[in-house]
């Protein structure tokens, strides 16, 4: 109810309403983005971009879904756009590198660990995040929203605008793929 009022005030261009929305939702958005982009600095940039999009397109929010669902959708779309752009940049840097240009591919730390992971799980989580990076886009989104953001299958389905059965299938396939990747990694490093 309070959030509904804030949204109405934001639609009328009230800056204080925007501040309140950002402060109450910044953690949620940042956590989702961080799970997908797996880099703290990039996550901060993308989170800022998400809130700029919210500010610019709040009038398009008709209240057909929950505000949080709408926000999750913007966060996921913006993160995926960011990752695609980063991949394109990397490919371009690789190609120009072949022709003798000194462009180095963007630094991409392979050992991301979510800051909220418990200390005794950090090594396993590091391996898992590396494997999550290699998943197909929709499996990655479904798995991350469920495991990192703690959303239920129903909520993930609403964010991804699909059915619960489809989400179940995506997460099942994600788990199978992760197992296979981890198995390969385990066999290689034995």
């Amino acid at each position: 109810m309070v959030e509904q009022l804030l949204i109405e005030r934001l639609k009328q261009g009230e800056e204080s309403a925007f501040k309140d929305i950002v402060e109450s939702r910044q953690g949620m958005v940042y956590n989702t983005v961080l799970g997908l982009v797996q880099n703290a600095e990039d996550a901060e940039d993308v989170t800022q971009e998400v809130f700029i999009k919210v500010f610019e397109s709040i009038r398009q929010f008709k209240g057909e879904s929950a505000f949080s669902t709408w926000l999750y959708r913007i966060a996921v779309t913006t993160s995926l756009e960011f990752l695609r752009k980063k991949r394109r940049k990397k490919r371009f840097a690789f190609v120009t590198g072949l022709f003798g240009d000194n462009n180095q591919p963007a630094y991409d730390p392979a050992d991301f660990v979510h800051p909220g992971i418990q200390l005794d799980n950090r090594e396993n989580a590091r391996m898992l995040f590396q494997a999550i990076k290699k998943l197909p886009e929709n499996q990655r989104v479904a798995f991350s929203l469920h495991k990192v953001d703690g959303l239920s299958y129903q909520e993930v389905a609403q964010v991804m605008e699909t059915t619960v059965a489809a989400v179940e299938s995506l997460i099942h396939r994600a788990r199978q793929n992760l197992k296979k990747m981890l198995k390969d990694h385990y066999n290689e490093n034995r």
Partner: protein
Amino acid sequence: MNKHSHNESDFEKILSSLDGLTPAEPRPFFYTRLQARMMKSEQSSIQRAMKLVAKPAFVLGTGILVLLLNGYILFSKLEQKQVQAEESTQMLASEYTSLNSHWNENLVENP
């Protein structure tokens, strides 16, 4: 079999390493940084517009466009005046011929 089950439990352990994860938070003063970015992007879009307006190509292009428009308006007005002049000459001529023929008819009837 034993090795296989050992692997299975290892994978399950890795997969469950995200259980009980504490949500991450951005660094403090996030809103201040967001506000600064929004103001910067607003300023940069104004600056971009100003830079475009100040470009010689833009100034030259606008000048040429204004001159062309001027020329077009002037030319169309001249053409209009010419047509009007032609029309009035034609009207005068037709009036003269009709008056002339009327005069001649009167002369024939009342010599």
